[in-house]
């Protein structure tokens, strides 16, 4: 490897390098800043700026041709560039949401933004993985940072429980993934996605490869919380500090879903028929657990947890199509979902009373009378996440179903629309509490960051022309892989 090829390779990694060096620098600044509160405040601002700058950088790099680095271990195609931009922005939004909450809850420590930055760095590698090793490294970097974040409120029993539960189950899934990866390596002779694709095309009935595939998919399914690997989601969402849950629900989900899509479409593209069965079963189970599980929840964070399980089911419907269209629909749905969920968590973070944060659905009662703007925002966001027409979330569902019908999976779509009726019931319950019930008390004024993000997300949710822009971006991004 000459210096010039090394430099060319590193050039493709510019955003990652900026993030990695930035995270280290932030850590140093944090250590040397006097006063914990001041350090936390400063690092929070710097980390947010860092993520926004990196997002701009990746947008700028998207103008370039992209390519592969380190002998094909790392790939930068339009698909990865798109996913990276969304991940960076989602990370920045998560930090904006966290600031005031952490200060109010006495949790403001400068490690928080650093950990988020490191997690985002891991995700950045995940979406660019073109080799099982890169895949695993990225995934672990992300997961380790997330384990710590889940237990960030270490004095709280629930948060510690959530962190521990997430860690144990996450370690198990990593084990499954590694075992699958070793099988795949053993039967294909390489860890490179390109080589695996060749091996898969030659022996698509190869039992060893199929076994490896199943384990890899199981490991990744844990990260996107698809049933039957979903058990951790409601508990972690409920137990972890709310901004952490907001972060969990957005960027990592998107990164893991993009990674899953790439693994299935690129190295295992020739084995579509094999993995289709797995994703279809996971899709149906996720939709079922998600919609029935959420019906009886009284905690809004748990509700969001189940809602995310159900929504991953819809994404898997699109992925099951195994076509380019399916891939677009996955990216599109995930983008809309991230916008909706970020907004919804911004609303949840605005649920603060003088006695502290509240998170029961009943606490939203009469919001339309006490805080009309917040109420209209939440209404739009809930309907958007639920996929009601006139909100952009509907187009995500439409696109996903279209991809599946195109691939001949009509029965899957019929199941999906029936589950969407069940799931709309619990979104309606939130709306009902907001609109129909009498107020049980007012909230304190919302934190500025949360207020702005909830309004922006709600505005995007109802502005249908935006859909066209996102679709154009997604189609452009999806052109990179699959076929």
């Amino acid at each position: 490897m000459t210096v010039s090829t090394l430099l060319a390779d590193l050039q493709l990694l510019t955003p990652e390098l900026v993030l990695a060096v930035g995270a280290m620098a932030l850590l140093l600044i944090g250590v040397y800043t006097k006063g914990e509160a001041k350090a936390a405040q400063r690092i929070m601002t710097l980390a947010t700026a860092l993520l926004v700058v990196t997002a701009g950088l990746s947008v700028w790099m998207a103008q370039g041709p992209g390519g592969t680095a380190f002998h094909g271990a790392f790939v930068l195609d339009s698909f990865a560039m798109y996913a990276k931009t969304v991940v960076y922005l989602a990370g920045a939004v998560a930090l904006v949401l966290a600031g005031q909450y952490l200060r109010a809850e006495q949790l403001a420590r400068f490690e928080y933004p650093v950990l988020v930055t490191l997690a985002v760095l891991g995700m950045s590698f995940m979406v660019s993985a073109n080799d099982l090793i890169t895949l695993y490294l990225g995934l672990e970097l992300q997961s380790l940072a997330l384990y710590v974040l889940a237990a960030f409120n270490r004095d709280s029993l629930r948060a510690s429980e959530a962190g521990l539960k997430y860690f144990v189950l996450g370690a198990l899934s990593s084990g499954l993934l590694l075992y699958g990866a070793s099988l795949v390596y053993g039967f294909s002779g390489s860890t490179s996605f390109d080589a695996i694709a060749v091996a898969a095309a030659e022996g698509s009935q190869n039992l060893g490869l199929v076994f490896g595939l199943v384990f890899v998919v199981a490991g990744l399914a844990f990260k996107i919380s698809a049933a039957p690997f979903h058990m951790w989601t409601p508990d972690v969402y409920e137990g972890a500090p709310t901004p952490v849950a907001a972060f969990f629900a957005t960027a990592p989900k998107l990164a893991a879903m993009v990674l899953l899509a790439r693994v299935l479409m690129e190295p295992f593209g020739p084995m579509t028929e094999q993995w289709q069965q797995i994703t279809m079963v996971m899709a149906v189970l996720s939709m079922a657990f998600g919609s029935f599980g959420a019906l009886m929840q009284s905690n809004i964070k748990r509700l969001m947890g189940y809602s995310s399980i159900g929504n991953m089911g819809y994404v898997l419907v699109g992925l099951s199509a195994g076509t380019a269209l399916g891939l677009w629909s996955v990216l599109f749905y995930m983008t809309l979902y991230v916008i909706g969920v970020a907004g919804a968590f911004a609303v949840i973070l605005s649920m603060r009373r003088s006695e502290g944060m509240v998170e029961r659905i009943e606490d939203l009662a009469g919001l339309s009378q006490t805080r009309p703007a917040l109420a209209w925002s939440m209404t739009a966001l809930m309907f958007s996440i639920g996929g009601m027409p006139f909100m952009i979330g509907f187009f995500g569902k439409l696109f996903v179903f279209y991809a599946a019908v195109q691939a001949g999976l009509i029965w899957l779509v019929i199941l999906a629309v029936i589950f969407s009726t069940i799931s709309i019931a619990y979104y309606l319950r939130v709306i009902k509490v907001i609109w129909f019930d009498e107020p049980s008390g007012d909230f304190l004024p919302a934190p500025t960051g949360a207020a702005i993000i909830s309004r922006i997300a709600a505005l995007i949710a109802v502005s249908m022309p935006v859909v066209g822009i996102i679709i154009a971006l997604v189609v452009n991004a999806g052109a990179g892989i699959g076929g």
Partner: protein
Amino acid sequence: MLGQLPILSAITFLPALGAVAILLLRALMRSEEGAVLDRNAKGIALFVTLFVFALSLVMLVEFDAGQAGFQFVESLPWLPALGISYKMGVDGISVLFVVLTAFLLPICILSSWKLEKRVADYMAAFLLLETLVIGVFCALDMFLFYIFFEGSLIPMFLIIGVWGGQNRIYAAFKFFLYTFLGSVLMLAAMIVMFTQVGTTDIEVLLAHPFARDLQTWLWLAFFASFAVKMPMWPVHTWLPDAHVQAPTAGSVILAGILLKLGGYGFLRFSIPMFPNASEFFAPMVFVLSIIAIVVTSLIAFRQTDIKKLIAYSSVAHMGFVTLGIFTMTELGVQGAIFQMLSHGVISAALFLCIGVIYDRFHTREISFYGGLVHKMPVYAAVFGLFAMANVGLPGTSGFIGEIMTMTGAFQVDPRVAAGAALGVIFSAVYMLVAYKKVVFGVITNPKLETATDLNAREWINLGVLAVLAVYFGFFSTPITDTTRASVDQLIQQYQSAQPVEAPVAATAAPAETAAH
């Protein structure tokens, strides 16, 4: 001519703009100025709805009734990747529904003039609803249609749930989930159609011959949606609940316009796009319609709540509509459209009549009333007129719709017409009995002694509707002339699409001509 002015988009989206204006106004005003805000909200809402009504009349004047195709077409590319475009247009079938919607909305706003609970939200919800419903009638893109169709659930859900009666939450959820389940099946069918044809343009889809067995499935999926919306027996149970709980203006919109979405859907999608399946399922629809007419009339007779009674009578009257549509004779289809428009006027008026006494006494129990004629003679006369129109008395618009659909049905199968005629008798029974109990007799309930007759606002509302109900009872041609060209084309298209029947028809035809 209107030239290139996008009049349909203006009619559709002006109310939404009004809603945004009201919400912005509320955001800008301080909370202590609640009364000022309420007054302004009402003013904006009334002004916008009247303006939209005027625009719709302009459109009606410019509408060329001799032409069968779509007019005032606007088309913009929107989501090329999904094949969705923004395409609007009206033909003879839809244009009158647009006018009906624009006509009923100011009446709704006026009838809620005394409302005090969260007025700004209420007006905004009604304006949004107007946008969505007019959008349904104008949309010429399948998914655009779906977006409006399904989107209309949201404001209605809020209207029932926030401003409704005692059991409003149950009613709102039932209304939403029933219609939603039907609609999502239609969505699945639409996606299948899109993958088959490659476009969502309704004009192209109308010309596309779908394979026969596919038609069956698609028809059933659309039927699931429209039958719930109509509502047809046995999926009508959400309607009485929704009506009873909804505020008066909500009931007016629900009965006057939202129920028509189902009938319009049949005419726009099921019949022209799936003619073979429509022909195949027509007997089933006839049976369901007759059951609806007869059974719900009997149920209506047993009601003690006057609003529920009118709700069941709506189901029965919608039975005539489905009956007429699926006869696929000119008379039947024309009659169905006429019946929908006339029911839009009459049921709206009846719900307003109930609103009048409900505002005064806060109960809908029939047994509470009796002898109102002594205290409210004008009201008794107006209510009587609409009760007669609901029964289908000659000289009112209700008669024309019923006689047309029944004649159409008679041409297809006399037994069907006989079943429907049974319903006419029953409707007279329940309506007249209820009217007698409420209006005639001596006043036994001392609370009624304080009753006051109609005020000016109620006068205007009911007076306008009464004029229409009587006018169209004598002069039906303004409506039938507008719809004729499009209906003729619809029937022609339906008949030319029945090739499977050709051998049978060929043998039957000479015999018939010989008989003549």
